């Protein structure tokens, strides 16, 4: 079960045409005080539990992933661009 704030983050920052570097910049800037206290923990849990699914990404963001492995690769690239902690998957 993803929290409302994690769903907001995915919608606001991970959708069509989103640039992971924009998110990294936002986290280093004014958005960091809001997101950094909870985002890495909630996102790590969602990744470990495979709670972010290709079906969710398709319906929410219109992004197509062939399977969970492809989606995990995509999440990993973003995680490594955003955080210093090791990828949790």
């Amino acid at each position, binding site marked *: 079960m993803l929290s409302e704030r994690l769903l907001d983050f995915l919608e*606001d920052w991970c*959708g069509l*045409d989103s640039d992971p570097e924009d998110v990294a910049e*936002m986290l280093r800037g004014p958005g960091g005080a809001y997101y950094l206290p909870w985002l890495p923990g909630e996102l790590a849990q969602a990744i470990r539990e495979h709670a972010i699914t290709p079906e969710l990404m398709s319906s929410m963001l219109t*992004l*197509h992933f062939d399977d969970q492995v492809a989606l995990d690769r995509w999440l990993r690239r973003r995680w490594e661009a955003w955080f210093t902690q090791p990828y949790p998957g």
Partner: protein
Amino acid sequence: MRERDAGRSQDQDRHERDRQDRDLPRHEQARAQDRGRPLDRVRDAAEIRRRAELSREKERKHSRWGHAFREHVDATDEQLARRAAAGVNARGQQEDSIPDDATRWQSDAASVITTDRLWRTPEAQQVRNEIDYRIQAGLPTRHSFTVRAPLSKVLGPNWRDDVYGRSKSSHGLQATQWRTDSQAVAVFRKQADDGRWHLHTCYPQAIPYHRP
């Protein structure tokens, strides 16, 4: 308490806007009076053209702020097909994911009116006021929000004339299949550079999304 404060802040903003509007030249005053009225495709054709050109100019000047026109108005059919087939967007960037549908608005008017109406929805106003309040109060907050609405509600009964796309399932060979409940989506971001809200993207989405 927070909602009351957010409401008071909204009133203060309105008074400040009214004060500024009184100092404007006459044609600018007329435009300011129209600010509270949703755009109409025929009546407001000149204003729609003006906003479209301003948006294109902003996308040229601040390419990272938004790309609504470059990707979802000015994209050619060939560019949409290429995106749906290979994930290369209209700016020539290879993306690491391919959309189910590469879509666009069929006119400046469709894009500008959709953006205007999504910006005015009660949901958008509420989240915007809350974010603005938190920023003014020095509280941590998100700086972006997404708003959705059915295309039929935003653009009226002839909305299918206003949207177009190519599907990934056909490798970009076939047009997007729209549904009666297809949606308009807009993402707005508060830019740290000027402290103002700007449209990040706005596009039609064939398969609707509803929060689980």
